[in-house]
C-alpha cells in the first residue's frame, strides 16, 4: 500500500537511533520547580497562591483566566517560595513564574469526580480535562478542553491522533506508543466519547514499525484505525497530517474543524487518560533528552517546571566547548535556549543538545532561483518571492502571496543551497504584518 503523505517537505537525517530504543524512565523528583503562568496559548493563568503557602502535588496554583487559557498545578509537594518573572523561551517574553521548593515525597491532590469515563457525560469529561489544565503536548500548547468543546453548528467527524513525530531526534511519542498503548487507546476513546466523534485515526510515520504494530494490536475491535504515513518532514504538521489521512485541505486561515477534524497529539491523549481515569492534573509529561551533546540520551517522565539544567544533569553533557546550542524541541522547529537555568513548560517534548559538528554555520550564497524552496514548501508558497516582498516591506503583496499561510516548518531554509534563512524572515514578517493590521484597526 502506498504510504499516505502530502506534497512537498524534506527528509532531514532522522537521528532517532540516539534514543528510540531507550525505555521511558521516571526521573527523581526535582528539588525546585518553576511554573509559568503562561503554560499554554492564550491568557496567563490567575495566580491562586502566595509565597509561604504549602502546596500538594496536583494542587491548582493558577486558574484559567478567560476562554482560551488553562489551569496550572503544582508539580511537587512543597512550599511556594517566590513569585517572580523569568524569560519564557516559548514566547520570548518575561512571564510570571511560581517557584515551589519541594519539602517531601508526593502528596497528591486529585481531581474530584474522576473515574470510569463511560459513565460520564461529555460535558463532565470536558470539565475534568479543563480542570486538569491539559494543553496540546505536541508543542502548540492549545488548551485541550477548548478543542473538545465543539462549537454549535460545527460537527467533528474524525479524530486524528498525531503520532507522526516527524521532527528528527525526538522519540518520546514513539516510546509512549510502545509502552503505554492501552492507556493511549483509552484516551482516544475518552475524546471520542466527549466529542461525539465516531471514527478515529492514528497517523504514524513508517519509520516506527514497532509502534505501528503495537498500536494496531491495541486498537483491534475499536473504531480506531492506524494509518501509516510516509516518513517525511513536516508530516506531523496539523494541516499536512489531516491532508495525508483524509485528503482534505484545512482552509487558509481556518481550523481543522472546518473539514470536520480534530487533532490530538499522542502524549496529550495519554494526559487526558490520566486526568479522566486517574484524576491526575497535568504535572508531568514525557520528554526526550537527546542530541550528540548528551552522553546518555533517553526518554523520561519529568515534572513540569523542572529547570533544563536539572533535566540535563540526569543524562550528562559532553565538554562545554563542543556544545553549540540547546533546543526546546527538535532541530527543525526547536527554540534555542539562551541558558539552561530556564524552566520547562507543558509543551516541552524534547531537549536537543546539538554539537558544533552537527550544526555548523552554512556558507551564504546569493539566491540562484534553483526552486528548491518552491518544491519543498508543503503549503505551495513561493518562499524566495515572499522573502523579497517582506524585505522590501511590500506587506500587501506578501499577504496576497500567502505570508500568513506559512506554517514555519523550516523546510525551505533546510533545503536552500544558498543557506538563506527564509523561514526566519517569514516569522519576523508575520509579526510586523500583524502589528500593522492591528494599527490599521485602531
Amino acid at each position, binding site marked *: 500500500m502506498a504510504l499516505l503523505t502530502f506534497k512537498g517537505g*524534506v527528509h*532531514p*537525517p532522522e537521528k532517532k537511533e540516539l534514543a528510540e530504543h531507550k525505555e521511558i524512565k521516571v526521573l527523581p523528583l526535582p528539588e525546585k520547580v518553576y511554573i509559568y503562568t503562561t503554560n499554554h496559548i492564550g491568557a496567563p493563568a490567575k495566580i491562586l497562591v502566595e509565597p509561604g503557602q504549602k502546596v500538594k502535588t496536583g494542587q491548582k496554583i493558577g486558574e484559567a483566566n478567560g476562554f482560551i487559557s488553562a489551569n496550572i498545578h503544582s508539580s511537587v509537594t512543597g512550599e511556594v517560595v517566590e513569585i517572580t518573572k523569568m524569560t519564557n523561551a516559548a514566547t520570548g517574553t518575561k512571564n510570571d513564574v511560581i517557584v515551589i521548593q519541594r519539602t517531601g515525597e508526593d502528596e497528591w491532590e486529585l481531581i474530584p469526580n474522576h473515574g470510569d469515563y463511560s459513565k460520564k457525560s461529555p460535558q463532565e469529561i470536558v470539565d475534568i480535562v479543563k480542570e486538569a489544565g491539559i494543553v496540546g503536548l505536541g508543542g502548540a500548547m492549545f488548551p485541550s478542553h477548548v478543542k473538545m468543546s465543539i462549537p454549535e453548528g460545527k460537527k467533528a467527524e474524525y479524530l486524528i491522533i498525531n503520532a507522526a513525530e516527524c521532527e*528528527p531526534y525526538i522519540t518520546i511519542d514513539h516510546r509512549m506508543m510502545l509502552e503505554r498503548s492501552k492507556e493511549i487507546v483509552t484516551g482516544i476513546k475518552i475524546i471520542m466519547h466527549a466529542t461525539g466523534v465516531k471514527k478515529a485515526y492514528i497517523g504514524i510515520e513508517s519509520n516506527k514499525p514497532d509502534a505501528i504494530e503495537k498500536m494496531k494490536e491495541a486498537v483491534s475491535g475499536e473504531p480506531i484505525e492506524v494509518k501509516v504515513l510516509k516518513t517525511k518532514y513536516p508530516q506531523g504538521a496539523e*494541516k499536512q497530517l489531516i*491532508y495525508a489521512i483524509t485528503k482534505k*485541505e*484545512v*482552509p*487558509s*486561515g481556518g481550523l481543522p474543524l472546518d473539514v470536520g477534524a480534530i487533532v490530538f497529539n499522542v502524549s496529550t491523549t495519554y494526559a487526558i487518560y490520566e486526568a479522566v481515569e486517574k484524576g491526575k492534573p497535568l504535572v508531568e509529561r514525557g520528554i526526550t533528552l537527546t542530541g550528540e551533546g548528551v552522553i546518555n540520551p533517553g526518554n523520561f517522565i519529568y515534572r513540569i517546571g523542572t529547570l533544563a539544567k536539572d533535566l540535563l544533569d540526569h543524562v550528562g553533557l559532553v565538554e*562545554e566547548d563542543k*556544545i553549540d*546550542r540547546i*533546543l526546546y524541541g527538535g*532541530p*527543525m*522547529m*526547536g*527554540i*534555542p*535556549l*539562551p541558558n*539552561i537555568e530556564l524552566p520547562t513548560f507543558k509543551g516541552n517534548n524534547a531537549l536537543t543538545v*546539538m554539537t558544533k559538528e*552537527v*550544526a555548523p554555520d*552554512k*556558507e551564504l*550564497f*546569493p*539566491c*540562484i*532561483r*534553483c*526552486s*528548491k524552496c*518552491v518544491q519543498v514548501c*508543503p*503549503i*505551495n*508558497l*513561493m518562499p*524566495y*518571492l515572499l522573502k523579497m516582498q517582506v524585505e522590501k516591506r511590500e506587506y500587501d503583496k506578501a499577504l496576497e*502571496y500567502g505570508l500568513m*499561510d506559512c506554517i*514555519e516548518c*523550516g523546510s525551505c*531554509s*533546510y*533545503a*536552500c*543551497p*544558498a*543557506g538563506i*534563512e527564509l*523561514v*526566519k524572515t517569514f*516569522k519576523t514578517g508575520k509579526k510586523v504584518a500583524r502589528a500593522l493590521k492591528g494599527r490599521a484597526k485602531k
Partner: protein
Amino acid sequence: MKLKVAAAPHLRSKDSVRAVMVDVLIALIPSVIVSTWVFGLRALWIMLYTMVLAEVMELFIMKVLRKQKDFKPDGSASVTGLLLAMNLSLAVNWWQILIGTFAAIVLGKHVYGGLGKNVFNPALVGRVFMLISFPVAMTTWYRPFYYKFDTITTATPLAILKEKGVESLTNWSDYSINLKSLFVGTIPGSIGEVSALALLIGFIYLVVRGRIKIWIPVTYISTVFVIASIFYIIDPTKYASPLFHLFAGGLMLGALFMATDMVTSPMTVKGQVIFGLGLGLITMIIRLFGGYPEGVSFSILIMNALVPLIDIYAKPRIFGTTRGGNK
C-alpha cells in the same frame, strides 16, 4: 556555557550553491570529451581558456570593484565560461573570446548585481554579442576529425537546410549527415553542441542529482518535435524531419543546459512548462521562417525576459485555498 541562539531550523542540508555549480560542470564532462574528440585539442583549449578568463574576471569584479575581500569563487563563472565556449565556433581567436567573456560576465551578469540577479543567460549574452560583433568567425565551421590535417570549413546541418533546402540533406556530398552522426556528434557545429548523446548523459546525471528544472527541456524538446512533425507531415519534401530538428544545431545544448539555467528560468512547474512551450515555439518560428539558421539562443534570451511575468502568472495554488485563489 556559551549557547548559540540562532533561528530554526537548526539542521541544514549539506547542499550548497557551489555543489550545484560543480554538478553542472561534471554533467558537461561527456560533452567536453566528445568535443575534444571531434574537434581536437583546440576545442579543449578554448573551453579551458574561457573558463579561466571568466573566473579571473569574476574575481576581479568581486574583490576589486565590489570590495568583497572574503569572496570565494562559487563556480558559477566557470559554468558560464564553459557554456559560452561550447556555444562558439572553433574559428574564433583569443581576443574575440576575451571580449565575449567580458560580455558574458560583465554585461550578462555583473551589471545586474551578480550571481542570481541577472535576467538573461550570461553565456548566451556573450555568445550573441560575439555573433553580432564577429559574424564571420562565429559562423565559420570546421569539419569534424580534420584537426590532424588542414582544417576545412563547411556549413552546419541547419545552415545547409536553410540555404539549400531539405533535399540537400539526403544527398549531402560535402559531409555524410545522418541521424547517427547527428546523435553522436560527428557533425560540424559549435564546440559543445554537436553531440546529443553526450549532452543527454550529462542531463541524466543532473536529473539523478535533482539539479535540473526538468519540465523545461521536456516541454521545449517536445514542442519542437511536435511543430517539426506537423510541418514534416504536411510536406516532407520541403521540411526536415522532426528527429533532424531535435539533434541538429544547438537544441540539445540549449534545452538541456542553457534554458535550464536556474537563475534565468521560472521557479514553478507550471511556469517551466509555459517557458518550454514558448521556447519551442520561438525556436521553430526562427528555424522555419527566420533568416538565421537556428533559433535556440534567441528563443532563450526572449523567454528569459518573460520569466518574471511567468513566475507571477504561474504561482501555485496555496494549500487550503480554492482553485480560483481566493481565500
